[in-house]
């Protein structure tokens, strides 16, 4: 028998293959487009996370607080102690301008402030008590 494949069958197979490839390509293009957006988001998130991790790094917090306590302004009138979960600093007898500077320092650092107290001891002197998580 002399058999012959119907050319329409071959064309149909080719068209089907092309259609599959077309949809495959479209699907991959869409995946890449979404992937690029996701990647940009992921990188932004990674940067933010890195920034937050750096900021809230416990070692940094302890060393910053320690250096604040050891500063010339506070060396003589501050007391710095640590418990299991907190770093405690008590500052006595600072005048208004010093108190301003200390409060600015405290609030501008990424300290997780658990407890804070500022008290007028005399007409010109203030006392500050600070507890931060560590």
């Amino acid at each position: 028998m002399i058999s012959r494949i119907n050319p329409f069958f071959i064309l149909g197979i080719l068209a089907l293959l092309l259609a599959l490839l077309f949809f495959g390509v479209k699907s991959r293009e869409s995946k890449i487009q979404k992937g690029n957006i996701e990647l940009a988001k992921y990188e932004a998130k990674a940067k933010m996370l890195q920034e937050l991790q750096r900021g809230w790094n416990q070692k940094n917090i302890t060393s910053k607080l320690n250096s604040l306590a050891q500063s010339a302004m506070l060396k003589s009138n501050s007391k710095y102690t640590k418990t299991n979960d907190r770093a405690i600093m008590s500052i006595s007898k600072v005048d208004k301008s010093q108190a301003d500077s200390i409060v600015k320092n405290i609030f501008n650092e990424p300290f997780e402030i658990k407890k804070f107290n500022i008290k007028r001891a005399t007409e010109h002197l203030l006392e500050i008590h600070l507890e931060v998580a560590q």
Partner: protein
Amino acid sequence: MRRTFKPFKFSFKSNKSIILVDSEKISVDSSEVFDVILSPKYYWAKKENLPVKYTYQAKSYAPSSFDGIVPEGEYKYLAKKADEGYWIYAYDEHYILSEIEKLGLKSSQIRKVYFSQVEFETITKPIVINKNEVLTKHNENIIKVPMQMVQESRSFESFMQNHQLSNFSISLHQFGHLIDFKKMMLVAVALLALIILYGVHYYWLGSELEKLQAQQTMIQKKYKMPTTKLQTDALMRTLDKKATTQMDLREKFYKITKTPLIQKEYFSNISYEGKKFTMSLVLSDPKRVGAVESYLKKYFVIDSVQPAGNSVTFGVHYD
């Protein structure tokens, strides 16, 4: 009135129906499918002594052998080994199909097509193909002659009772008349070219996807990200919450320091713990408590107000 040819329908084993097709109109059920034996009208056949060993070699001689003999058309060629030499055939698919369709048989009703030269090569008596004509053998050729020229004949049906169709058949290019084969080839080539293009593009996109994956892994390593999205999100939430809590605290503390105090008024104490502030103020006049309270109310929920002479202690919280 046009004469209608009642086809010789022969039910073979497994319900196959066979039709001998010549020039007569065919009346059949349009749902039935048939094997067709072509009368000599539809093909050219000749026996040749060719210096070749194999049938495919003989087939390659066929075009030149029919050159100048057959009318213009798109011919296909076949060869069949004979006792001596080869029978070679030339046939035009488009012509056969269009002629058969004119007789009333649709191309979709044709299963296989046989040549009367092969099927009837063993006949001993002419075979009737219509009221006036018979197929007979002359010098090994099956030819159509008027019935008056033969003395005896037999019906196609009676012949087929003892005849089994040969293996020498063709499947007609059923859709060949719809579109030119060359055009179909062009379409096929175009489709193939597109398939190759899309295939390459598809492969390239695959490598781009892998690159994206690699980039994500690189970012993960560079920024020391947790391995899973769940861990990342949990860590992010924790740090974010810390940051938000401290930002809120700063903002609220700033609002407290901006409490509208007048001369000689001051805070004697400000305490903070767990989103709660306790603050003591010395005011110039006890009536000023209301003014301070209404300011604090803008930013806090007032928990307690404890006046004591010129002093007052506020307990407030925020969310």
